[in-house]
């Protein structure tokens, strides 16, 4: 990890510790939890788009697999929650491998198409055969870690943001490693990368699996936090929402995933005042920011900061 990123992670850690001191409002903590859950999915997609040059329109599918499988295993089979989560994440990653092998062997955006179909299939399965069908099911056991059951919003806030910090450290290390350099190299020249011995297909598959693991982890955390699931949160709409987070946050920097999740998650809350016009204003803000901040917010901030420093 570079020095700048290490400092940024440290600051994030301090912010996470101090944040609950700034507010005792459960509503705000709840929103912070949802920002965190969305950020996990968005960080994975940022790496996939920014470092493997691939688009997924099916992150909701992995998010759904993570949520439903972990919920079902713990609720109906009585498995410990932690174990259920691990199994759910493993199943999501196997699914990702199966999906990626045929679509990433070919050049072009087959993965986008394949994941679009995959996401829809998962949504239909949850809708038709998930417990409770379209209306969903509840009573999912809360998270427990080695016998300690998490109850309060505050505890979930800390756990989820701890997950983000761990995931950020892991991802930043990955990007700064030989593997990360190879991924950036592939961006500039696939041909040269191949002749240097880089197995491009394998690397892309691995990045895709990584994005699926992050999404499934987010889904499982969501399930055990909310303790109620219905298929509506796992549709194409959610996949597009995550795509929005990534594009608005900026694909060239994985901090963009967190920034995008923050904006897209709080925007509807902030826009409540507009009543029936909220969708309109929401759409306008997204369109304008895409038009005027092509690279996304985080890269824009860094560029501005660098320009300011050099003056």
């Amino acid at each position: 990890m570079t020095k700048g990123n290490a400092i940024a992670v440290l600051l994030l850690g301090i912010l996470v510790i101090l944040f609950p001191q700034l507010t005792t409002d459960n509503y705000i903590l709840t929103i912070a939890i949802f920002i965190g859950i969305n950020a996990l999915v968005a960080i994975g997609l940022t790496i996939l788009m920014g470092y493997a040059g691939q688009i997924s329109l099916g992150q909701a599918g992995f998010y759904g697999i993570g949520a439903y499988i972990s919920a079902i295993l713990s609720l109906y089979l009585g498995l410990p929650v932690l174990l259920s989560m691990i199994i759910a994440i493993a199943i999501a990653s196997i699914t990702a491998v199966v999906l990626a092998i045929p679509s990433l062997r070919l050049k072009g955006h087959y993965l986008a198409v394949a994941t679009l179909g995959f996401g829809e299939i998962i949504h239909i399965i949850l809708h038709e055969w998930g417990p409770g069908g379209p209306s969903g099911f509840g009573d999912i056991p809360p998270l427990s870690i080695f016998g300690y059951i998490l109850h309060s919003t505050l505890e979930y806030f800390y756990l989820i943001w701890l997950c983000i910090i761990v995931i950020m450290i892991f991802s930043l290390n990955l990007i700064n490693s030989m593997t990360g350099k190879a991924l950036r190299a592939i961006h500039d020249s696939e041909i040269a990368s191949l002749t240097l011995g880089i197995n491009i297909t394998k690397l892309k598959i691995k990045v895709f699996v990584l994005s699926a693991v992050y999404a499934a982890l987010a889904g499982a955390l969501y399930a055990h936090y909310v303790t109620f699931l219905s298929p509506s949160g796992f549709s194409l709409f959610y996949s597009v929402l995550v795509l929005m987070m990534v594009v608005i946050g900026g694909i060239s920097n994985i901090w963009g995933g967190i920034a995008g999740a923050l904006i897209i998650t709080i925007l509807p809350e902030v826009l409540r005042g507009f009543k029936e016009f909220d969708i309109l204003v929401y759409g306008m803000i997204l369109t304008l920011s895409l038009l005027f901040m092509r690279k996304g917010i985080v890269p824009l901030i860094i560029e501005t900061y660098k320009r300011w420093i050099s003056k």
Partner: protein
Amino acid sequence: MILDIKNVSKNFGGIKALKNINFSVKKGSIHALIGPNGAGKTTLMNIISGIEKMDSGDIYFKGFSIKDKPPYKRAEMGLARTFQNLELFGNLTVLENVIVGMYLKNQRGFLSSGIMLRGINREIVDKSLSILEYIKLSHRQKEIAKNLPVGEQRLLEVGRALATEPELILLDEPAAGLNMRETKNLSQLIQKIRDEKGITILIVEHDMELVMGISDLITVLNFGEVIAEGEPLMIQKNPHVISAYLGED
């Protein structure tokens, strides 16, 4: 023989780019592949390195058929190359370009990369720096590769290829766009690579002074066919070669 080209043919639609090519490259030699524009030299380089498929024939590297091996497997076996139309990692720094060249010998899984605290270890960086020194590009290490002048970009491609620790390097017009002084340095560098590192060189080049000065053997290609092969002095006198270059037929 480190490389054997056996009956290799390649068509692009109606164009017969390569017709039944046969020749071998001796281990430890500097072997030149020359011929007029469009003769098929780059096509053959692409086929040897595996980024283009041949229609028929076979290629043996160190005695093993590599026809069905993907490019990254050929690189693992010790084959490296440079590109006529520069394929540098333009947005990476000069140093990073060489570091990526060391990927082959230093790759790690995702898990160990993710939990590693130090990104790329000192040893890799030092090795890359010594390669930059070898090709006399140390002063450019922090520069973004695409901002280098063409001559230095070509050198960097050579450095990146060296970083894979290859046994055979394919150079596709390494002197194109270089001035006289740069060409002279390149010529010395190529000889140094062969003499000091024992790496075999297969070079495609239009600069005849360079080719004649360093090659042990020259193979001449014209319209996708081998029309001559021999030592520099013989090739210079060969009437087929002379007429091919003068454009008579």
